[in-house]
């Protein structure tokens, strides 16, 4: 390579790095609409611990879009994925508790903490507000002999045609915990297959390679409507608008409620007055008709909670997740011992 060419390359790199300046400005307070002395007065970073474009990211961006209109400053979404959301959650927890770094997540914070992937735990963050929830539904292939929850619990214990049932999950993720939550009381013995999340698991069920799994309503309502999937039960307190004819677990005599709660957090130690500013803004947002319609389009329902009520929900959820995590670890040890033998 000639010296002249190397010079040209350096020149090009300089040209290329020049635009980094405006790019970096995105995260600087210069762009903020200033209001001296009050909170907030500079750009707020909202960490989403999932990849850009995923369902959590999409929903989080809906909140952020509305917050942008409500607050006097801008908000920027930062996607930090990895470690079952623990990378982003830990990054938020370690940030300065000044209200300028927030976290938008759901029970993945609790599942990753219960499994000790997130070593800081939910106590490293202060919940600001729960904004919405997404209902879960268990589904099987239409030709499956499992037709309702009782059949599922029986099949979980005894298997189908002499074989243990195969359940598709994303190991350690919310759908794994949620399925276990549904069947834990049955002392079930099922095979968990690491088929991944939503669409990947669905493909395996429709192809006849898996027996069942648990899904967010948005992932399956169309397939259930077109009878390509059979829903066993909806895990909510009432039936879902998009799943007419599908009864709730309660209606079938089982008091199981499984919901993914979209919640915003701040690092522990953040001033309560600052938390209140965000919580109040979110409270106003969930009352907006257009916002509710945007959520419902994605089969998500507004469900606003804050303060002690929210903390209570999180504590209860976390206690359940810890029991399930112990069960997962115990099963893993049993399997490892079986393999050794």
């Amino acid at each position, binding site marked *: *390579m000639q010296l002249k*060419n190397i010079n*040209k*390359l350096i*020149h*090009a*790199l300089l*040209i*290329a790095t*020049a*635009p*980094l300046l*405006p*790019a*970096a400005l*995105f*995260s600087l307070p210069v762009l903020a609409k200033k209001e001296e002395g009050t909170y907030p007065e500079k750009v707020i970073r909202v960490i989403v611990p999932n*990849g*850009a*474009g*995923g*369902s959590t*990211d*999409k929903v989080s*961006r809906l909140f952020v879009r509305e917050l942008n209109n409500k607050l006097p400053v801008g908000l*920027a*979404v*930062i*996607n930090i*994925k*990895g*470690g*079952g959301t623990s*990378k982003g959650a830990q990054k938020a927890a370690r940030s300065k508790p000044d209200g300028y770094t927030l976290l938008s997540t759901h029970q993945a914070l609790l599942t990753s903490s219960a499994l000790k*992937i997130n070593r800081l735990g939910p106590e490293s963050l202060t919940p600001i507000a729960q904004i919405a929830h997404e209902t879960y539904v268990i589904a099987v292939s239409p030709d499956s002999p499992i037709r309702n929850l009782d059949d599922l619990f029986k099949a979980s214990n005894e298997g189908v045609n002499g074989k243990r049932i*195969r359940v598709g999950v994303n*190991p*350690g993720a919310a759908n794994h915990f949620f399925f276990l939550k549904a069947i834990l009381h049955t002392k079930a013995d099922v095979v968990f*297959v*690491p*088929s*991944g999340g*939503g*669409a*990947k698991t*669905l*493909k*395996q069920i*429709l*192809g*006849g*390679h898996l027996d069942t799994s648990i899904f967010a309503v948005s*992932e399956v309502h*169309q*397939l259930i409507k*077109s009878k*390509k999937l059979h829903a066993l039960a909806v895990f909510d307190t009432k039936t879902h608008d998009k799943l007419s004819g599908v009864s709730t677990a309660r209606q079938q005599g089982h008091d199981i409620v499984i919901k993914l709660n979209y919640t915003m957090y701040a690092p522990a130690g953040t001033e309560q007055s600052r938390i209140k500013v965000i919580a109040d803004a979110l409270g106003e947002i969930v009352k907006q008709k257009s916002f509710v319609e945007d959520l419902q389009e994605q089969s998500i329902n507004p469900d606003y909670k804050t303060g002690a009520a929210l903390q209570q929900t999180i504590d209860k959820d976390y206690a359940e997740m810890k029991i399930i995590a112990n069960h997962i670890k115990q099963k893993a040890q049993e399997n490892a011992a079986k393999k050794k033998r």
Partner: protein
Amino acid sequence: MIEGLLNSFIAMAGMPLLLIFIGTFIGIIFGAIPGLSGGMLVALSLPLTFGWSPINAIALLVGQYVGSISGGLISATLLNIPGTASSIMTTMDATPMARKGNAARALTIGIWASFGGGMVSWLALVSISPVLSSWALKFGPWEFFSLVLVSLMLIASLGGDSLVKGLIAAVLGMLAGSVGWDSITGQERLDFGFERMQSGFDMLAVLVGVFAVGQLFYEILYPKTIDTHDLNPAGKVSMRMKEFIKHWAGLLRSSVIGTIVGILPGVGGSIGSIVAYTTEKSLSKTPEKYGTGYEGGIVASESANNATVGGALIPLITMGIPGSIVDVILIAALTLHNLTPGPLLFENEPDIVYGFMNSMLLGNIIMLVIMLLGIRYFAKIIAVPKTYLTPILLLVCVVGTYAVNNSMFDVWVMFGFGLLALVFRLVGLPAAPFVIGLVLTPIAEENLRLAVILSEGDYWTFLTRPISATFLFVALLVAFKPIIGPIISRKLNKQS
């Protein structure tokens, strides 16, 4: 399905239609300028579409894809330089015809052939996809793993001039694709202690790096000056339908060949046009005319390369496997909009599938109109000095890559892969197998391990399932092609 397609077609009026127009227009320009490619344009535009509705994103990107494949014809005819790799065979006849003073005629034939090829492959896309999609739904992880293996072998052997170089590039891509969390066990791997590498490389940053930054670096190091005095297409921009019709059989054959080559995973326009051109030449009663400015040669090459677009969209929509390099970027675009390409796309998001089909159809029609009307002006665009173009494009690369995740790390990843693409080019390694290897490795790994778990550790299941066994056999054939090929041709020669 027809009703859904029609409804979607009506819904495309408005913003999607405008975006298809813009996409096709810019695509033609990028295709026409040597050194810029459709892959680069689609990769550059991808970050821009973040936050748009998926239909709008698809409209722009598919328009660009169609436009860029067609635009290559302009420089192939006027300068004897293929604007894109898929127009290599077009230079064989379009340039001699142009040199004889019939440039406008060569371009007109090429434009109509491109349109014809596009329409044939669109028909294939619309008719084959639903059938293949419901068939692919029955594919288990065994079949998907074997199919990915075939794709990797095909792209390694057909993508460049040497299988070994192709395989080296593919293996390097596979290594880069293995960085990050193990999807089954959650174990960190190949992160070299860098926390930001634990979640793997951001696909968008990698694609922009390889397709755009690498090429721009190359342009800076080895700038080409274009002799612009030939850039005024002489002759009439019209031709008699009778003249065109006499090549209908060739057009149809080449379009079918292009479509089939397009369906082959990872193999794109250039191979399609080479196979079609060679086939037409061997079938012709006057093969000596090919390469001398013969209309049939232009028809074969241009119809086939445009036909690969529709063909390549078939495995993308039905199985989530990229039919060509540009499709890798389209897959990234779908992922960015929380959509998973594959057999379920038809069930869950039929609007997206119809959006692809209608964008291709409209892109093709718009391409025909724009190119016929604007041919004389497009010819002038080829001469736009790179001194202005390169910094602007680099700026778009940086801002776009940064903006999606608000991450500087992604910008460095983009530059890193840009430099890697430059090194690949300088040492003669093809970039296509690298990118396909990178994209397909996680799919292959996930399906391999899932298959083994489902068959309780029994690897023989790959051979006892007929479709999986067939795919593996094809992969083996492709791998041993350099050994088996010469033996067969020697035997055939002896017999003759």
